């Protein structure tokens, strides 16, 4: 079970958080969402780096084929 921590907020910050909280969202999830907007480490790196291979689509098409051929070369029926 995840450990719970208690933090104290003043009235002003509590009201601000309450205003931002979505329906069915917990305060923990809200804080993660807000921090993620500021800290790239907390964002999803796959989305942050999405498109890094897009300039070379032709090359990556070829690389994907190469990977497929490597994968196929390790077919289980080759394991005796």
């Amino acid at each position, binding site marked *: 079970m995840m450990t719970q921590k208690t933090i104290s907020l003043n009235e002003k910050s509590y009201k601000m958080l309450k205003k931002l909280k979505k329906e069915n969202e917990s305060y923990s999830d809200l804080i*993660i969402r807000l921090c993620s907007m500021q800290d790239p480490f907390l964002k999803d790196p796959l*989305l942050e780096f999405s498109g890094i291979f897009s300039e070379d689509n032709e*090359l*990556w098409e070829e*690389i994907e084929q*190469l990977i497929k051929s490597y994968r196929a070369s390790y*077919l*289980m029926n080759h394991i005796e």
Partner: protein
Amino acid sequence: MFLLDTNIIIAILRGKQEIVKKYQSISSKNQPIYLTTYSISEIYIGFQDQEFQQKNLEKLNIQKKLFDKMVNYLDAQKRVISLNLEDAKILGELLYKLKARGKPIPLIDAILSAIAISRDFTIITSDKNHFNVIKTIQDKLKVEFW
């Protein structure tokens, strides 16, 4: 919880819009999404290939640096996984059954399937053929085809 196959990781990194949108929809729900060290190895095949290096050394080096950075972030988030003891036991069963039934599939597909079955993950892949074969052997396997 989800486990990404290499073809989906590459599609996201290539910025394929249809895949990126689908990925965004699961990522935004804070669902845990993992990838394996085996997929990282497969992508490294591309970085190592001499023919590709001769054509695009500079660009590949930049992409490799960015990829390494991304993988380090994912690793720090504990989202890069490998076979553990329980997965290994299931892999053994799976390999035996596939071999006994004469259904050869790539070893990496069997490894990903064992991890997914053992940890109750859903594999996301574009490879219908091999994972459907594994499903005929082990119906606990959950797969989404994108």
